[in-house]
């Protein structure tokens, strides 16, 4: 009723049209206008009343979202039969559609395959309610632990870095006693610019010392712990400038000294900081990006380039770079564009660029996505081919150049073959390939043909290798890449900051030696469909890792920003499938259960996220 819409006090009523539609649906063909009006008024009144009552039930359940069960209890209180079959634990995921001047909110009803339901795919078990105790405050001061919100919220950090003037000078950080001194300082400097106070408490200084020592020390277990802390601790905000300085200074010194191990350790620190959900690194990117790019394109990163596996470092740093681009690229800072330009400029140098740097630039570009690869690398493939041909086929080159050329060749084939596969139609003629791609034509042809015959493209296999490279990067300095790297990662206490964990879980995980029984069965049918996804969206390692772990069910819904969380989970189980069994059975079953549950929850989270984007 249009006339009702004007005032706030009078909400909307159901329209006469909808009354008629409802009437039709139950077989009353021609409902009189008068009757429809009467009905709509009465039904709107009743509905509003029921909703009012349902809100009472919502209030007493200490919620802010009205659920179907609330409506049911309102109906029950009026002695009306409740609405059966509308139960949903989650808030309704309303979809929105518009067209032809009409707007429609509806609930998407998925078709359920009864056959599938019957044939053994076990329904998801509901999550057990758990109780977790932690300190909310101690003597009036809130400790910065993962269970508490970060002292400075990420949004505020973001706001600060984007617009420093916006920083509220008198805003008292939660739980911290505000000292008069601090306030005074702010007042004095408020007109010029906010001076960040970087005074660290004694505890923070100790923490900084311990963490930095552990990160670059020789004890791998300790390092794992330190990195874990860096990636999960919510209270690092104040120490961030120091950490960044530590990293960039470290890179500066160790590049000169060709200390590969330390460079890797420092990059892992960057990775940990990037992974920390409570930190917003944008303010420090101008320092971090040069350091990371150094580790990608530097001419020499190790003492013995022909033996040491500095390629892993370059790969790892490239992935970091793509992660940075993904997380922080905005229309104002144009990080991705600038980084792409930097790498392409390196490629422009032609013969002058050392082979190792060429490899780094190529790897860096390839991590930025297939589109970038197609535009910037594919056209030059001939010249690259020509260059590495001289090293690979000729006799005059050093061993170092030969290895480098080999790596470049592998890399190019890995990244180019899937692209060619999509842009060229079969049949693939070897001659054409030779014509178009020169030296690399033969290998590319072979790779493309192979990719076409196999449902699993080359990229997956290759990326799996590189995945292990990432994890093993700390250890496999002088060794070839082996799967031992995975074991090392398994030793890390992979504590996620997802609260849904039970406290006892952590302890179980640290020496987790589980065996996942159900994983392979469930995942196998899915793996086939994933490669397309990972290829089309070359988001890099994270996604591919999921494939390798094969625990994913609803992959296509994956959202970039969340993939890291998932990685942690799936890696554990990926690892666990390899590892020998050495724990009590009951524990293992429990662990499996939790793992599965977590995946479910993650997926729930994801679907939720995607739902949140919709207007509800």
């Amino acid at each position, binding site marked *: 009723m249009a006339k009702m819409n004007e*005032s706030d006090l009078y909400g909307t009523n159901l329209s006469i049209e909808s009354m008629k539609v409802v009437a039709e649906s139950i077989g009353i063909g021609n409902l009189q206008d008068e009757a429809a009006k009467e009905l709509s008024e009465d039904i709107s009144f009743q509905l509003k009343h029921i909703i009012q009552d349902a809100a009472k039930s919502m209030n*007493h359940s200490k919620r802010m979202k009205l659920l179907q069960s609330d409506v049911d209890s309102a109906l029950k209180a009026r002695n009306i039969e409740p609405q059966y079959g509308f139960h949903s634990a989650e808030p309704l995921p309303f979809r929105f559609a518009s067209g032809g001047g009409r707007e429609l909110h509806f609930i998407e009803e998925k078709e359920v395959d009864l056959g599938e339901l019957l044939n053994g795919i076990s329904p998801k078990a509901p*999550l057990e309610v758990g109780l977790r105790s932690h300190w*909310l405050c101690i003597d009036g001061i*809130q400790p910065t632990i993962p269970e508490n*919100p970060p002292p400075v919220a990420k949004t505020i950090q973001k706001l600060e870095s984007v617009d420093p003037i916006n920083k509220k000078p008198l805003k008292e950080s939660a739980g911290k006693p505000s000292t008069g001194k601090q306030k005074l300082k702010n007042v004095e400097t408020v007109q010029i610019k906010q001076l960040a106070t970087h005074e660290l408490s004694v505890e923070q200084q100790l923490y900084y010392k311990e963490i930095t020592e552990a990160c670059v020390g020789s004890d791998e277990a300790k390092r794992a712990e330190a990195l874990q802390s860096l990636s999960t601790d919510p209270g690092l905000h104040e120490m961030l400038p120091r950490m960044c300085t530590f990293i960039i200074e470290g890179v500066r010194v160790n590049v000169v000294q060709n200390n590969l191990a330390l460079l890797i350790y420092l990059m892992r620190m960057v990775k940990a900081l990037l992974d920390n959900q409570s930190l917003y690194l944008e303010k420090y990117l101008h320092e971090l990006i040069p350091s990371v790019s150094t580790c990608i394109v530097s001419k020499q990163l190790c003492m013995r380039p022909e033996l040491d596996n500095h390629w892993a470092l370059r790969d790892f740093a490239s992935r970091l770079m793509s992660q940075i681009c993904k997380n922080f690229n905005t229309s104002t800072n144009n990080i991705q564009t600038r980084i792409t330009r930097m790498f392409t400029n390196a490629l422009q140098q032609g013969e002058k660029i050392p082979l190792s740097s060429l490899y780094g630039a190529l790897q860096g570009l390839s991590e930025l996505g297939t589109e970038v690869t197609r535009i910037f690398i594919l056209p030059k493939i001939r010249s690259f081919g020509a260059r590495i041909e001289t090293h690979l086929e000729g006799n005059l080159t050093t061993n170092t150049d030969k290895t480098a050329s080999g790596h470049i060749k592998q890399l190019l084939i890995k990244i180019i073959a899937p692209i060619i596969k999509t842009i060229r139609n079969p049949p693939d003629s070897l001659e054409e390939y030779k014509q178009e791609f020169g030296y690399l034509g033969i290998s590319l042809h072979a790779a493309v043909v192979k990719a076409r015959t196999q449902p699993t493209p080359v990229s997956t296999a290759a990326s799996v290798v590189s995945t292990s490279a990432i994890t093993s990067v700390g250890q496999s300095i002088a060794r070839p890449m082996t799967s031992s790297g995975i074991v090392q990662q398994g030793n890390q206490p992979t504590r996620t900051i997802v609260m849904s964990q039970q406290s006892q879980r952590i302890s179980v995980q640290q020496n987790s030696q589980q065996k996942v029984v159900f994983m392979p069965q469930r995942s196998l049918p899915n793996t086939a469909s994933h490669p397309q996804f990972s290829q089309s969206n070359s988001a890099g390692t994270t996604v591919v890792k999921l494939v390798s772990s094969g625990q994913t069910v609803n992959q296509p819904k994956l959202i970039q920003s969340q993939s890291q969380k998932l990685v942690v989970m799936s890696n554990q189980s990926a690892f666990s499938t390899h590892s020998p069994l050495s724990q009590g059975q009951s524990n293992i079953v429990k662990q499996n259960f939790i793992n599965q549950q977590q995946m479910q929850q993650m997926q729930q989270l994801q679907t939720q996220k995607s739902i949140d984007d919709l207007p509800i």
Partner: protein
Amino acid sequence: MSNGLDKNQLTAVLQVLKKYNLKETEEQLRKEANLTDQVDQQDSDVSSVLTGYKSDGDPETYEGSYIELKRFVENSLDIYKHELGMILYPVLVHMYLELVYNGHTDKAISLMKKFGPEQDIYYQDDLKKLAMVTRRDHMNGNELTDTFKSNQFIIRMSRDTLSLLKRHVHDKKASVLLNIVQEHLYFDMYEGVARNKTQIDATSGAVGGEAKRQDNKIKVYYGIPKAPDIQILSAPVEDEEEPAEQESPDKPKKKKSKKDPLLSKKTKSDPNAPPPDRIPIPDLKDNDKMEKLRALRETSKRTNLGPENLPSCCAYTLLNANYNVCCAEITEDSSMLAVGFNDSIIKVFTLVPQKLKSMKSADKLQEVNIEAEDVLVRMMDERSGESARSLCGHNGPVYSVSFSPDRSLLLSCSEDSTIRLWSLQIWTCLVVYKGHMFPVWDVKFSPVGYYFASCSYDRTARLWATDHYQPLRIFAGHFSDVDCIQFHPNSNYVATGSSDRRVCLWDITTGNHVRLMTGHKQPIQSLAFSICGRFLASAGTDCRVLIWDLSHGHLVAELTGHSKTIHCLAFSRCGNILVSGGLDCSVKVWNFTKLTEEISSEDVNISHNPDVKTGDDYLLRTFQTKNSPLINLHFTRRNLMLAVAVFDGIAS
């Protein structure tokens, strides 16, 4: 009251009698009414429900007379303006209802649209509800319109303002207005200066207007009586593990000559405390006395909190329980946590290393030596210890749970309109109390045990005893759902908070209300008595904590700061700190000592309403949780704050 009204009411009664075919009575009444007009009809509310709005006034005049009244209010002197302004809202409401009742819907809607939005902000919710009513049959059974029809809207006014108003009403001869003022408004006149806008706003907002002075005149024994003598048991106290000494004839009772220092520190008897025999209180069992001593012992280790000594807080976060948890409660000794779920289950968690044991089976119990000193321990099955136990039996969301003081019983109330009593020794339901006809929102054990109180959607609160299946008292009087209930620390009173936005204190001996306090603008969700018993804190959907002085029923402070509904309040054991928590995922710590000190320095009497204290002066600290709305706050005997929160994994 005019004769006309009495006639109206009489005819209404006659209608009722006719309806139920009570011919003789009807005849009788008819005869009687015709003979005498002296029938006492003061409180026949039922009648006015039926014909209250019968009016043949010209619908065109309503808007005019409202505008006239408004102009009169605006043009009056500043000191009277605000008090006069208070009548605008009830007059508008009654005009609207009259119009609707007599079928002039269009007029009613236009009146509401024109003047509804300009009413005070805290009336907007009710206006919205009223606006839904557009036809006479909508009024049938409508909670809000019934309230307006059958109760007079109470307005407190100074003598001068009232005479001003009366003169205006009579001068204008506006029959519509006159009718409303006479029939539906009650003026609680007081001597003195007219109040200003802030003073008025502080106490208005309730559905039925303000509280009458008469409502708060009765003396309330808000003091805490002297603790019962537990001296006799001081002997076995030395060893805490040892159970109560059994009264066995062969063992002569040890007389303790040396007085326990804890017990010698006797509190002076409070002049405001009720006589100890005012309500029958169950005798303390030996076990209870032991418990009391243990509590006293703990108390001696208590840290006193204050602005310099802020509390520590341990948070218990419930995981994987999105939208599923309705309530939580911690035992007085902080050893157990009970959680009521939306899916009708109750879970009891242990918060201490001792597991939750159940009693041995009947045949095994026979083997237990009853004479043994530790018979209570021996009764329990050692192997049955679990860290969490579920209690199933309800048939709807469990809205509240409450532990008995001795921790052997648990009460729960649910949407299925029942209250259940559970044994925490055999872990089954013992009694189902059926009395409420609608969802029961809250239930609380009395601090002495045995009694408990419940409140419900059916607008009543009830007092029960565990061994009676029917309620001992029914506290009726709220105009809307009674949302929360709390026992006074001396067990002689219960306080209720309702969706009609009034806080009420009931005497459990008489069942009458002794305090009626208005000032909330939204439903009340939580109540807490101060340790001294004199103050009551209430909070709710309007995001404010209000502090009431029970000695006179005055509103003394208004603590603002929360941004969403407050669901829990707690006083520290020392009484210095008040904490509040709610859906905005924050715990706020308030300095209660400062507040009481400032209050006690003021001269307060029944007619002088003190200025309401506001502001952030009392806020000591805010602690934010991580996306976890607070559902319960509790202080341990040593003054450690415990918070129960539900992690909202979806919002993060």
